[in-house]
């Protein structure tokens, strides 16, 4: 099911591509030209292939919705989807994203129109900083499991820390998004 969805998504995105953003060429000629597909748009950037995706999208492409939390892949603040799977962008080099689709928080709304709505409805965020990562993890969960149980939510979401402690509402919001989806 996930595979079908991804195939459909990829097809859809080949048509979606509209803005091609070229960043300024850096002065370091040992950097490589790298093409990335983020939220359905193609970006070309000049960067070291080992640079984590997090810093490439934040510092070079200017997509600041994805957050730095630990730099070690333990808190989930930087989660993105890479070909549909949640990965820690703070420890995943951009070389691994070449030829794949990246979805960041800025693209979550196009993927699932219920998640953010449920998050807003239940007033989930406190400081909000971890929520992009939480929403991306929740998107990956609902893509593979449209009606998760509490336990399934726990295991899918336990990689994401929220220091404000919004867990109770996150769980409720995932159930609500699943519910809204099934009603639609």
């Amino acid at each position, binding site marked *: 099911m996930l595979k079908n969805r991804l195939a459909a998504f990829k097809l859809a995105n080949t048509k979606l591509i509209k803005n091609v953003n070229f960043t300024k060429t850096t002065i370091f000629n040992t950097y490589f030209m790298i093409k990335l597909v983020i939220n359905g748009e193609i970006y070309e950037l000049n960067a070291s292939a080992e640079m984590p995706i997090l810093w490439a999208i934040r510092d070079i492409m200017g997509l600041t919705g994805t957050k730095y939390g630990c730099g070690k892949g333990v808190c989930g603040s930087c989660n993105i989807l890479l070909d549909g799977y949640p990965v820690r962008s703070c420890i995943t080099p951009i070389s691994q994203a070449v030829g794949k689709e990246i979805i960041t928080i800025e693209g979550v709304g196009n993927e699932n129109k219920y998640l*953010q709505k449920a998050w807003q409805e239940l007033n989930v965020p406190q*400081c909000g900083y971890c929520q992009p990562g939480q929403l991306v993890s929740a998107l990956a969960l609902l893509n593979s499991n449209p009606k998760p149980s509490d336990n399934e939510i726990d295991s899918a979401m336990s990689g994401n820390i929220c220091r404000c402690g919004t867990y109770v509402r996150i769980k409720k919001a995932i159930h609500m998004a699943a519910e809204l989806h099934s009603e639609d």
Partner: protein
Amino acid sequence: MKKVNTVSRRSFIKNLSMVSGGLILACNVPDTKNQIERLSDDLNDFNPNLFVQLKSNGDLILTASRSEMGQGVRTSLTSVIADEMDADWNRVSVKQATGDDAYGNQNTDGSRSIRTIYEPMRQMGAMARAMLVTAAAKKWNIDESACTTQNHYVLNNENNDRIFYGDLVEEASKLDMPNDVTLKSPDDFIYIGKDLKSIDVIDFTTGKAKYGLDIRLPDMKFAAMVRCPVTFGTLRSYDKTKALQIEGVLDIVEIPRIEKPFGALGGVAVIANNTWAALKGKEVLDITWDYGDNKEYSSDNFMTEITENVYKKAKEVKNEGNVNKAFKKAEKIIESTFQLPHLVHAPMEVPNATAYVQNNKCEVWSPVQAPQTTRKEVSDFLDMDLEDITINVTFLGGGFGRKSKPDFVVEATAISKIIKAPVQLIWTREDDIQNSYYHAISAQYMKGAIDQTGKVTAWLHRTAYPSITSTFMPGVKHGAGFEFQQGLTNIPYEIDNIRCENAEAEAHVRIGWLRSVYNIIHGFSVNVFADELAVAANRDPLQFRLDLIGSDRIYPSDNEYKMDTSRLKNVLNIAAKNAKWGDELQEGHGMGLAVHYSFYTYVASVVEVSVINKRLKVHNIYTAVDCGTVVNTNTVKAQMEGAAIFGMSIAFYGKITAKDGVIEQSNYHDYKMVRIHEAPNIHIEIVQSNDIPTGIGEPGVPVIAPAIINAIYSATGKRYKKLPLMDFGLV
């Protein structure tokens, strides 16, 4: 001293209105000294030190003077203004104030935003409303008493005519400010006490909210710093060759130590054209340090030392009756020792600042809890006038007290000054955990006496912890009065003989305040010890505790934090009722309670846990809170839910240790947080009240850890007096 301009407030308001083309009101905030002087400054520069701005199209721009760090303050403060104005919330947008004394105290800490400026914000709204009414009455040529307001309109009660607020801007701008305004009756509130959604919830859920690290300026550089791993160690030498070879690294600069409470620790900064390059450069910098006086600091040895100190007579900080006499006559004597480690805030967004120093001015963008302190620190460091420093407050990705201390801003300013370019300084998570202002490590000794009837006749409480004042006055060996008033000298128990003492403890790391501060320490020992006394007296912990709190009274009389014991008992009763206290529990389950008063707010929690196969699980937390008038029920609920998780992290995992002066933890893998699979069901009940509003950001924290300890005792008969529980293999 600045020249006091003679512009009166009234003419100020008029002038400002003319220039802006909108109705703008300044606020009369308490503890704003020399308001006229500052207003006149603003008139010259046109710096809008204002709370209410109404445009002729009806747009209402309200200013939030406090920092948003998850406590919902941008929504709650402005909704208070909008309520008194009878404004349409859908037309409200919120402007974040820069750091400026004109706003009154902006320090977003001590759970005091609503508590201290609820009334002034109401007056702001009421003043605006009154002027709009006057303007409408003039237009209609009727008496003001014939006018009412509703949802952005003034209504004419004589003929059902109405005027849109936006259409009154010009007329209202010509009016003098009213001398007195009438505030609404609580029955007429339209937003206060309701469940208003966060005004920022869409930005928070779409990645649009701009935190400190999201600031991007033209030609901005990225920087990371290496600081001495031992507090106040100094730089001896460094080799930058390898770091300069990293692609993207532009420069390496030395940052001096600035010896101020919120100054810079000093170190070496890597300047790069992206964060990744700066972080890589940091890794390969070769630095030799002089570790200085704190290199011997071992938190294990220190714990032993301060524990010995609490076993000896110490400095008296409270004495009622005569505990020694009572101990001699006691039927039973109970003694207990509590040991709690250092903690660190670890907000999800690390400390960071973007600074741009130019010849005669400096602008900063940073997630700070204390923008005025920040402005002052930067002004002192650069030797520039306050007016030349602009502190823009971004969203804070959590604060918990860490971001009250703007050392990271001073660092960024120092870097920008050297490289003459805008720069964003990031602290890595490792920097955050290893170079912070730590919550104090503590040892406490308690001794209680019980008579033949099971009544507590004496209570001795001796504490030792490095004081926060050590950060301001190095060498301080005792706690401060404001620390003792956080649950030590204002214990709510009706006992004839009470004695509190404070033993020596010196600081070897920077000590700072962390969400609920010394209430964490005292709330823990007092609540666990009271539970031990209940067991010793062979009584039900709930009834025993209610009896211990005793008669209805305002207590203590010699203390800033006077409490109403009836409200304290009330929250305890509510939490117990919601938890069905006394009902039979499943095998392996137990229930524990704790009740604590802090930041003028009453909180009780009852926690249900199970300990099965030596593994702890928290199933349910029932919290009852009385914080007086509630401005936003959603916010209060959210803060209590969050505090439950924050308190669980303290109980389960919170521990910072130092060895050879170096902090041993470094990131979320070894300074762990409670995660979603460990989160219990959390039930919150808010007491309905028309009393003055009190704190809500912190008071939910202190009860959680002791309630868990008491619940574990109820489940297993084992009493833990040291945290965290991971050290016992329970989690």
